[in-house]
């Protein structure tokens, strides 16, 4: 039986298993049995299997369901749903699971598809080089880059070829950025939602909890590998940042080699609702850090601080360009001071 963290999505009392390109009935039956067993132990929960782009038809799915109903207790089957995602629409999704839940599901399906087609580590490598350059850490070897990104030597070599004009090559096959790579940075920001698996949440209530309360709740929840970024992170590194309060809480979740589980958000505040609309100001934003080395630094009161590059991306992503530019200038000045 899979453990809790191995579910694709955990939202409120619903556990979701997303199956990409699954055409095998044996695989489906095995998932049904796994979830039925789990539901037997969790009478207040529900479960959902989503078959995405599967050749299993709706009619055949109904047959499979009837087959399962003969073997599984009715009170368990009534809490287990199997639905199809095909040609951009869901078939058989329970009515009460629509709206905000679908947003989360779409997000996960899209991200899972991306991962399925192998993540491009180029931006991980660019972020590592930026981190080294902005913090004046000096040049880094290709091997170390691969170790920090968690990718192979050829992947590192391909990324460095692409970054060629911005690189300064040093002794012992070490490299570092010559300058801030503005064009590549712009490209990275344009796709950052995808490669950071950004999920935005708004509060479905007029009663808003202060960000400080969210942070203290997160500390108590003892979530591994969770860092604070955004305005708070930037202020931690640069006290003079021209902003008094954070308009939202940016969190970075380190998930190298692990599945992303945002179930902690519904424990943080069940009123938080995922949204797709990037124009609606979110209250909480979660970004995933996939590289092997997170560059997170421990926060005295609990949790971690996301690294400077992550915070900088958060500021730009939140359209706080002036504060982002100031932060970048401050980091560059500090770097020059170290030289």
């Amino acid at each position, binding site marked *: 039986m899979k453990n809790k963290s191995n579910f694709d999505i955990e939202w409120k009392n619903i556990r979701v298993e997303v199956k990409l390109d699954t055409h095998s009935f044996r695989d489906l039956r095995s998932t049904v049995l796994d979830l039925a067993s789990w539901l037997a132990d969790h009478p*207040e929960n529900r479960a959902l299997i989503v078959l995405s782009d599967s050749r299993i038809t709706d009619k055949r799915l109904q047959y499979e369901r009837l087959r399962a109903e003969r073997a599984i207790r009715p009170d368990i089957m009534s809490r287990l749903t199997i639905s199809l995602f095909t040609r951009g629409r869901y078939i058989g999704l329970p009515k009460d699971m629509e709206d905000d839940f679908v947003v989360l599901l779409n997000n996960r399906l899209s991200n899972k598809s991306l991962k399925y087609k192998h993540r491009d580590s180029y931006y991980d490598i660019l972020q590592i080089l930026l981190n080294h350059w902005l913090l004046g850490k000096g040049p880094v070897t290709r091997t170390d880059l691969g170790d920090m990104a968690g990718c192979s030597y050829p992947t590192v070599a391909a990324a460095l070829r692409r970054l060629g004009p911005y690189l300064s090559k040093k002794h012992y096959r070490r490299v570092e950025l010559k300058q801030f790579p503005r064009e590549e940075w712009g490209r990275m920001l344009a796709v950052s939602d995808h490669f950071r698996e950004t999920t935005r949440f708004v509060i*479905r*209530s007029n009663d808003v*909890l*202060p960000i400080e*309360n969210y942070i203290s709740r997160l500390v108590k929840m003892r979530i591994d590998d969770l860092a604070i970024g955004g305005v708070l992170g930037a202020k931690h590194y640069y006290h003079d940042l021209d902003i008094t309060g954070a308009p939202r809480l940016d969190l970075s979740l380190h998930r190298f080699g692990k599945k992303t589980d945002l179930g902690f958000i*519904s424990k943080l505040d*069940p*009123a938080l609702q995922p949204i797709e609309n990037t124009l609606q100001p979110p209250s909480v934003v979660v970004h995933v850090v996939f590289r092997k080395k997170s560059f997170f630094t421990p926060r005295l009161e609990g949790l971690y601080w996301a690294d400077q590059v992550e915070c900088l991306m958060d500021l730009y992503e939140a359209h706080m360009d002036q504060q982002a530019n100031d932060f970048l200038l401050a980091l560059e000045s500090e770097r020059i001071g170290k030289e």
Partner: protein
Amino acid sequence: MTSEFREVSPALILAQVSAAIPIETRSNIIIIGSLAAAYWLFGGDRSLGVRTKDIDCVLSPRLTAVERGRVIAEKLLASGWKPKSMGRFSRPGNSKTPESELPAVRLFPPGSNDWFLELLTEPMKDQAKLGWTRMPLSTGEHYGIPSLAFISIAIFNAPMTEFGIRCARPEMMALANLLEHPIIGKELIEGTATKRSNKDLGRVLAIAQLTKPVEVLETWPEIWEKALKEYFPKRWRELASRTGAGLRALLASPEDLQQAVESCAISLLSGRNIDAEQLITIGQRLLVFAIDQLEIRAMQ
């Protein structure tokens, strides 16, 4: 569910009750129910009224409940308060009437039918359901004082009001209701199709909705644990671990939740336009911020 209730001002009623009852009995009275919740949750806004018919007064301690209840009832009756004459058990009993068939003391103030005062008391040790205590008056008429299993929880640490009588804490009334309804029971409120559980659990949601700021909910598990340990030293873990069961059942049942919404709309949340979606949100917050935490404490 009927909507016969008129809006009444918590402060005005408290002042009226306080002035009507003998001064020496004030310290034995604790108001529970919608009025007490509204008194604390509507804050300083005296213009806000609450729709309620019954003003529930708990006589505490139980030991003196009959004696104090008699003093209060006789004083009110002598001052022109009228017994509620409709419904079952509308006439006073006598020494031969079984306790369970005695009418409760339900008295309308002179010249008003908007609300009535009802006397209750704390339960006996290990009392699991509704109980009745005989209260004979000097006239020979017999009344009963009802007690519910978790009234002691509801009145735990009830603070004093400016009117010299105490009003139960909203969070303690919420806990009492949660404990009273670990499932959605079938019992209906007399004369309605509304389940008692839905009304009472709806009140829990209304209290949570009115509690500001919302993070105050996080402070509830501590006092809840304290009260449970005091009144149920041997059973507190068992009770705490099932605190959220009824609420979870309510949130999972659209029909029951709709009854809760309707109950709230004619009571504490009157005029606030709260729908089922908003009650689900506050219910989920209450579970995560308070009830789950109490249940965790029970497991430690």
